């Protein structure tokens, strides 16, 4: 399997400069990016073994003495490449606000309570089928200073590695039907409606555990697909 990473796959990504999200104005490159070929330096990337994390790291409700407050949920899915093949043995990291919409971070000054039983960090290495599964609580919405009455939709931050440094992805997983979607410049920085929907998890009744926790499915597709003869000509 020789993966290639054509730039066309990135077409749905947000633009670096997206003025509705104010912080991009001074933090986006203003000069043209320099086009260079992919070398071994880009086509490789960090490889984590299953000993890099502990099994308990994937359950965010069991990191303290008591259970966190809020709506317990399961978030699971597969990490896939562009050919829909599983990406096994790859590190998936998440972080999120607690059920009240407050992060364990001193920069977060939202006057909502911290939960002594919730930190909000989790991680797992995908199995041979690219599968991951977290147990957590549903994060709350929270205000931010981007514009008047700005609130972030409920979301969980995801960081995924994949097969090379080119497949590296940091994104956010949203929840279906969020009423804040139309007003959020970060969500709408992805201008294509279908592409935006790829960041929205699906409610998964089949894997919801009766009398215990709702389940959401979030499949993540990373850059990279099998080289075809045509791709080979280009390189």
């Amino acid at each position, binding site marked *: 399997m020789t993966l290639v990473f054509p730039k066309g796959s990135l077409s749905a990504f947000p633009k670096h400069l*997206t003025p509705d999200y104010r912080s991009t104005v001074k933090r986006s490159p203003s*000069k043209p990016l*320099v086009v260079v070929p992919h070398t*071994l*330096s880009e086509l*490789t990337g*960090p490889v984590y073994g299953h000993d890099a994390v502990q099994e308990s790291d994937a359950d965010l409700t069991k990191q303290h003495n008591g259970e966190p407050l809020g709506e317990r949920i399961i978030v699971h899915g597969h990490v896939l490449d562009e050919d829909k093949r599983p990406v096994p043995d790859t590190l998936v990291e998440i972080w999120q606000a607690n059920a009240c919409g407050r992060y364990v971070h*001193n920069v977060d000054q939202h006057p909502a309570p911290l939960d002594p039983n919730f930190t909000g960090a989790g991680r797992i290495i995908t199995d041979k089928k690219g599968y991951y599964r977290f147990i957590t609580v549903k994060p709350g919405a929270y205000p931010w200073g981007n514009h008047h009455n700005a609130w972030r939709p409920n979301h969980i931050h995801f960081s995924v590695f994949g097969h090379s*440094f080119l497949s590296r992805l940091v994104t956010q997983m949203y929840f279906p039907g969020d009423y804040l979607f139309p007003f959020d410049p970060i969500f709408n920085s992805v201008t294509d409606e279908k592409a935006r929907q790829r960041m929205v998890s699906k409610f998964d009744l089949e894997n919801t555990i009766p009398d215990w926790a709702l389940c959401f499915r979030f499949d993540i597709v990373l850059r990279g697909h099998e080289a075809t003869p045509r791709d080979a000509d280009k390189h």
Partner: protein
Amino acid sequence: MSEITPSQTVGPFFAYGLAPHSRCDWKPSDVYDWKETAGANLVTSDASGTKIRIEGQVLDGDGMPINDAMLEVWQADAQGRYAHPRDRRTRPNTKFMGFGRSATDKNGAFSFDTIKPGPVPGPNGKLQAPHIVFCIFSRGMLRQIYTRLYFADEAANESDPILTLVPSDRRGTLIAHKELRGDLRVYRFNIRVQGESETVFFDI
């Protein structure tokens, strides 16, 4: 074919999950035992080569420090080999992974302790000059940006197949300069995200 999941910003609050023991100040008190999957020290006791430190600052379009960026570095070992199955050359059996991660502190500063990488294979059978790939994430960046650090004291920079694609008047933004501090070899590498002396970022 399946279409990829779009990128979103890392936001300002990643530190407790991704870089808990970094130099950034995310939580003033308390002990936090979340082990880092990768940190700012890449050196392993079994890795051969020259120990170096990379130091720098990340600055925005106004020249102000970006105090909530996350940097990831990826590099070959001293023999120019990547710890990845796609690099099929024989590797010495060491634990050197070549990946590091750090948040910036309140001054936008970061540092990495590592081993100076060797030259690595490039396009058309040519060697690339020793370099480190940088990937930068932060609040206000909806997608990561990639750059490369090259070493000022490498003659091979002149013929590097990637560096020579960069307009000559901007190449200097990718060159780290050495400062000797006692026995420590420090390479200074500032990253200017935007503006007149903007660092070169790559479209890859």
